[in-house]
């Protein structure tokens, strides 16, 4: 069958945890929902949760062949926990495990061997890059992996679509009764937003820590009432891979030009006034947009309400300057963000569900005025690909892209018109991550294109200094310089299915022909 974006979706997906439902529209499945029930084992007073080893914990959880386990990705490319747990599971002879990890990074390459040996047979992730993503693209698993958005992952867990048997939670600080925070310890990562749904909805929860602290581990981010067992290990991660030292604004003149144009557009949109809410990523160009917006806000004395998403020191600066009232933080990107979370009362952690789940009673993304987004490709319908490279290999994923695009009043994609030789704009993107109906504007170094669906915005910009071009014109400008790329040949075999945030299938990734 074809979904509403014209993407060919198979009637069945091997190993999928539910029936295939094709994407029909970004806001079609909002309304009545039911949250799943969770079986839990209550604890007698006097019983202890602290165990002697990881192996003991795995045994006590009752983990068996065929079960689903989960991880969070706050330790990013410094994470030791996924590999540690999987090596132990493999050595205990357990097979056919499905991994629900909020994201996977190059450090998780040892998973490939566990896939080859049948220890790991399924994978769910919102973002993945590195050797595991490449191996999946080449078809290492018999069943396609399922990719989510950050909010969609929470939705899938809370609805019971993904039933987590055991959640293994990397815990930078933990006490002997299972209260967890990410603020302290050698592997501090700040917020633990992506692990909250896992803790609340997994049947068994194991906290893995290298920093056992006195009870209670305040300020508590994940509380004891959700945690079954605690295991102490030498190290849960490598701080160098967890947080980047400093995040820098781009020095590239093209990136700076795009940033400046974007800030002018935001100003002209009428949204940049007192109470302004704003989200931008940690990339160099995104930060440059923040810098340009910061200047305008200072100049005009505008006070914003909140910034959200993954947080960098740059946003902390804007908070501490008084340009924004608060930060709603789902993940800390650097040490400044972690420090701010410790010290600033108006720097508030949030769960991935609160951040972007379309099936709760209102996510933070719904309150966003403006979000700045990236793109690997965008097509003339404004559909965006951030999942696969133009060569068809998985190298990312939606993360919060689709969630913020759907929620924000103004979703702006910023990008160079071509990178290397690859043009940004295609007739059809290789993979749809985010539907075009939720993307409002594309800003490039050679012009701004507004989505024709946003007639109100086009009307408003008519009286401003902002010059608009059509996305088709931008595409032609680029192709005159780069030439038109040839299409990648693909195998019939599916290697990944992409779930939109509401759980419908927005696209699939097929194996590349060698």
């Amino acid at each position, binding site marked *: 069958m074809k979904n509403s974006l014209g993407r060919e979706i198979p009637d069945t997906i091997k190993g999928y945890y539910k029936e295939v439902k094709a994407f029909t529209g970004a806001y079609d499945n909002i309304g009545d929902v039911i949250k799943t029930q969770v079986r839990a084992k209550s604890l007698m007073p006097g019983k202890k949760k602290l165990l002697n080893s990881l192996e003991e914990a795995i045994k006590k959880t009752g983990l068996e062949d065929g079960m689903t386990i989960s991880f969070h990705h706050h330790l990013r490319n410094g994470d030791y926990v996924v590999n540690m747990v999987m090596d132990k599971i493999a050595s205990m002879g357990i097979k056919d495990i499905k991994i629900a990890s909020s994201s996977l990074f190059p450090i998780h390459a040892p998973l490939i061997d566990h896939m080859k040996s049948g220890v790991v047979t399924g994978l769910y992730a919102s973002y993945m890059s590195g050797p595991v993503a490449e191996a999946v693209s080449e078809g290492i698993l018999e069943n396609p992996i399922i990719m989510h958005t950050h909010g969609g992952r929470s939705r899938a867990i809370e609805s019971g679509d993904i039933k987590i048997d055991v959640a293994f939670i990397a815990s930078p600080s933990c006490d002997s009764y299972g209260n967890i925070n990410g603020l302290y310890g050698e592997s501090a990562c700040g917020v633990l937003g992506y692990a909250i749904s896992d803790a609340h909805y997994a049947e068994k929860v194991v906290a893995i820590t290298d920093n056992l602290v006195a009870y209670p581990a305040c300020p508590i981010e994940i509380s004891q009432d959700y945690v079954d067992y605690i295991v102490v290990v030498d190290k849960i991660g490598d701080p160098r891979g967890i947080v980047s030292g400093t995040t820098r604004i781009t020095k590239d003149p093209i990136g700076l030009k795009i940033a400046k144009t974007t800030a002018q557009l935001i100003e002209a949109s009428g949204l940049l006034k007192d109470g302004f809410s704003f989200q931008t990523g940690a990339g160099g160009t995104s930060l440059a947009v923040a810098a340009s917006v910061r200047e305008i806000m200072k100049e005009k004395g505008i006070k914003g309400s909140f910034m959200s998403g993954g947080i960098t020191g740059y946003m902390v600066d804007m908070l501490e300057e008084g340009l924004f009232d608060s930060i709603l933080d789902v993940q800390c990107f650097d040490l400044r963000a972690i420090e701010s979370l410790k010290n600033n009362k108006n720097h508030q952690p949030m769960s991935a569900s609160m951040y972007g789940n379309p099936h709760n009673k209102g996510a933070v993304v719904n309150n966003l005025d403006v979000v700045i987004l990236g793109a690997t490709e965008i097509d003339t319908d404004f559909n965006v690909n951030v999942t696969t490279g*133009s*060569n068809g290999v998985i190298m990312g994923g939606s993360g919060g892209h689709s969630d913020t695009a759907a929620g924000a009043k103004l979703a702006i994609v910023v990008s160079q018109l071509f990178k*290397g*030789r*690859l043009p940004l704009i295609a007739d059809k993107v290789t993979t749809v991550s985010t539907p075009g109906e939720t993307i409002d504007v594309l800003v490039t170094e050679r012009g701004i294109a507004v989505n024709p669906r946003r007639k109100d915005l086009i009307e408003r910009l008519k009286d401003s200094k902002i010059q608009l071009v059509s996305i088709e014109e931008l595409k032609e400008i680029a192709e005159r310089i780069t030439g038109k*790329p040839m299409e990648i040949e693909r195998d019939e075999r599916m290697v990944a299915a992409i779930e939109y945030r509401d759980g419908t299938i927005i696209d699939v990734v097929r194996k590349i022909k060698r």
Partner: protein
Amino acid sequence: MVIDKPARAGTLESSDIYIMVQPNQGQGIEIQLDSIVLKQFGKQIENVMRQTLKDLEIEDIKIIANDRGALDYTIRARLETAINRAN
């Protein structure tokens, strides 16, 4: 024009192409191309090289190229430079 000795031009920086040329007396045109956009632009890159060779009236040459997403004019300029250095 004849290729007398091996020569090279270009770099491995993004958006550039590194080209080595070698004599290939009586053996025609031989192109070994590696590119980060081989699937999307491999044919086009080879076409640009062959056209450049035709314009310079070169019939025997071995080209070893490592492309990092260079545009056509870069490919042409790097190849011409390598050839000028080869005789």
